[in-house]
């Protein structure tokens, strides 16, 4: 709660939280705001925006409501972004914790795998993964997580290595605590804050990656996403550019919200450290 108050005191945090809260509401109430399947044909094709009050943002080539697509696309973007980031951070924490705590050969081996994942462009990896397994929402989530877990793993390991030598860990060892208990009760909570600060960046990157994947036609074809809407509009870019521009704006606003939130969070953490 105190963190939330600190967060709201920074302008970045307040704006970011506001944007994210609004988007979460849109995502939750998308079926109420625009009932029905957003992929169904709703009206005349290629209606320009701001002309028909029934379709404020117009319709696309097949006569699908653009506003409905954007509202429902919020769900996909947020869900995929959050799920992928969550998976990436969970994998990263486990690997980093194991590597940092076990040391020796296990550490060496795990870090070489991390190296391998860091030198392969994660977007190429996701592209290959989705194309091999087939496009569906869980596969896209996994593909994005696969390219994003290496950074949190490295950061967690570095944290663990520095915390492991501290006095309170030594005393926990002296009183005969089980290594696993030390890892999860003493080290993990203290290693977490910087990793959490990184997580907002990972969410933003995951949202952008999802959009790029579905832009290239590798998203789940049964779900409406902003990336696929932009790709769809690209075919008739010359005559009606608005079809690509509106979902893009939604994307930019979302990512800005996440960045601002993360900046506010970092500042709130920093302020906390200053005033003990």
């Amino acid at each position, binding site marked *: 709660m105190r963190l939330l108050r600190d967060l709201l005191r920074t302008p970045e945090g307040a704006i970011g939280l506001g944007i994210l809260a609004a988007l979460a509401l849109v995502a939750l109430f998308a079926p109420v705001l625009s009932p029905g399947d957003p992929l169904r044909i709703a009206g005349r094709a290629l209606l320009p925006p701001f002309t028909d009050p029934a379709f404020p943002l117009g319709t696309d080539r097949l006569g699908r409501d653009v506003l409905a697509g954007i509202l429902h696309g919020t769900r996909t973007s947020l869900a995929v972004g959050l799920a992928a980031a969550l998976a990436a951070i969970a994998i990263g924490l486990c690997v980093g914790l194991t590597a940092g705590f076990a040391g020796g050969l296990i550490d060496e081996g795990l870090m070489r795998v991390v190296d391998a994942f860091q*030198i392969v*462009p994660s977007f*190429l990896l996701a592209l290959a993964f989705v194309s091999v397994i087939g496009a569906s929402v869980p596969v896209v989530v996994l593909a994005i997580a696969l390219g994003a877990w290496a950074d949190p793993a490295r950061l967690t390991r570095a944290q663990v290595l520095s915390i492991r030598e501290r006095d309170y860990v030594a005393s926990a060892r002296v009183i005969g605590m089980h290594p696993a208990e030390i890892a999860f009760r003493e080290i993990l909570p203290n290693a977490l804050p910087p990793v959490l600060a990184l997580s907002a960046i990972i969410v933003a990157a995951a949202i952008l990656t999802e959009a790029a994947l579905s832009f290239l036609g590798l998203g789940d074809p049964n779900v409406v996403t902003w990336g696929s809407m932009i790709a769809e509009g690209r075919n008739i870019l010359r005559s009606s550019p608005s079809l690509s521009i509106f979902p893009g704006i939604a994307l930019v606003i979302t990512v800005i919200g996440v960045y601002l939130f993360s900046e506010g969070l970092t500042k709130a953490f920093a302020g906390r450290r200053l005033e003990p």
Partner: protein
Amino acid sequence: MLLIVVVLTFLLLESASGDAVDAYLLSIGGGDATVAQSLRQAYGLDQSMLARLWLYFSSLATFDLGWSVAFGRPVLDLILERLPNTLLLMGSATAISFGFGSALGIIAGAKPESIRDRVLSTASLILYAIPSFWLGLVLSIVFAVQLRWLPTSGIETIASGKAGIARAADIARHLILPVGALALIYMALFLRVMRSGMAEAWTLDFVLFARSKGLSRSRIVLRHVARNALLPLVTMLGLQSAAMLGGSVVIESIFAIPGFGRLAQEAVSGRDAPLLMGIIVVSAVLVVCVNLVIDLVYAALDPRVGASEPNS
């Protein structure tokens, strides 16, 4: 490290349902089982997984990346043919974004929390949030479709018969939009890193010392603060090289540039496992090379980092 990349990629592509022969038969309208069998034999797809992994490694040692089924040509030839375009795109985008990004970062970081700093920081935040492919589309709507100043796609005018400088100028004209789309976003990133590095450097003791010595402000900014902030920026450049290569896939697809990224997309749609594998291996090699150069630059910038010292 590269070994692990090869093994992991191999396992990933191995888990695919249906191989290149299936895709090929589908594209020619089907065929019977004996044809598929003989094709698999010809490409060595009927052997066990471990045998093929060993085969891949041994041919990799002689720089043979295998045979692309979709194109009917050696993978290495295809990659080498496309790589220069991508390197041109990435290289110019990196140079521009690094140059402008660090320069603007110095302007912003010269006086932290000033209005100039606030404006630049906010602008870079918004710019950094823009997906590169959407920026590319918007740029091409404005400059190519509406204003008709620049071409929308391709790397050069087809069959223009130009040579020498005229051809170089033609390619440069085609590259303005894609490079711009890629560079603007990374410029924002570099600006942010530079700015925060400088804001931190202002609090360090040697800057305080330089100020108390009475050095001029511009000298302190450039020689003491900016130089120190350049180090994390160079590190960032290395870290981002993999992401930039990935970003060029999408940019190349928008502007129809026959490069590395387009090749990856074609490999995906053709279910061309050897080609996809070769692309991933080569891009990993590329990223390692870039980071090697970065390490050398780092040693040159920071006298504390010796080339002979073992760095972890």
